[in-house]
């Protein structure tokens, strides 16, 4: 199993450009997440999905959109990139059985995005 994969690994954008980050998981997990990691701020949840066709806002959703058209894929879009979106982006997934209190999240290797 590849686990959680992310593409691309690195990207440099100019202000105002758009891009899509792709996350794929092969573990048949229901839940998927997009986080951003900035120095000294830990992980902040951008958006997440509790199943195919559903998405929800996290802590810092502004400036991002997501889609979960297939269970194994979760896309993160930036419509008009800003320098404040320079960060490392991590995708994660977890398997939530009904009523289970807490399941381990599995993370991808990350995408380093720079917006000039």
């Amino acid at each position, binding site marked *: 199993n590849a686990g*959680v994969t992310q593409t691309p690994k690195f990207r440099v954008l100019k202000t105002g450009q758009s891009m899509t980050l792709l996350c794929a998981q092969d573990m048949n997990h229901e*839940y998927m*997440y997009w986080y951003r990691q900035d120095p*000294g*701020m*830990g*992980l*902040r*949840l951008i958006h*997440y999905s*509790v199943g195919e066709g559903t998405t*929800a806002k*996290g802590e810092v959703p502004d400036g991002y959109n997501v889609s979960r058209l297939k269970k194994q894929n979760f896309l993160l879009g930036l419509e008009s990139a800003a320098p404040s979106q320079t960060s490392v982006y*991590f995708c*994660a997934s977890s398997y*939530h059985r009904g009523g289970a*209190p*807490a399941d*381990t*999240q*599995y*993370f*991808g*290797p*990350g995408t380093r995005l720079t917006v000039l």
Partner: protein
Amino acid sequence: AQSVAQPEDQVNVAEGNPLTVKCTYSVSGNPYLFWYVQYPNRGLQFLLKYITGDNLVKGSYGFEAEFNKSQTSFHLKKPSALVSDSALYFCAVRDNYPDSNYQLIWGAGTKLIIKP
């Protein structure tokens, strides 16, 4: 408000000595607690979790964590540090409000440096 605190930005330990990385939490209801590790330029990896039962939880790579309900703490420990343990460590607690879909609340991370 529900929160996680990692009071130390950095912990320095000599190889072979015991190590402790501190974590305290504030959450309503039963706490479900996690530790993750991030090696340089990698995604986060699950180390261990506390759901219920024995207050001492054993995890990967020889790490363990002690749940202390009265002190609302979940400190990560290892009896004998290795240079290869040098990494960024994150504590997390499950958000127990159903509206959050039980997302994880993350600490800011503690950089652990093990010196030969």
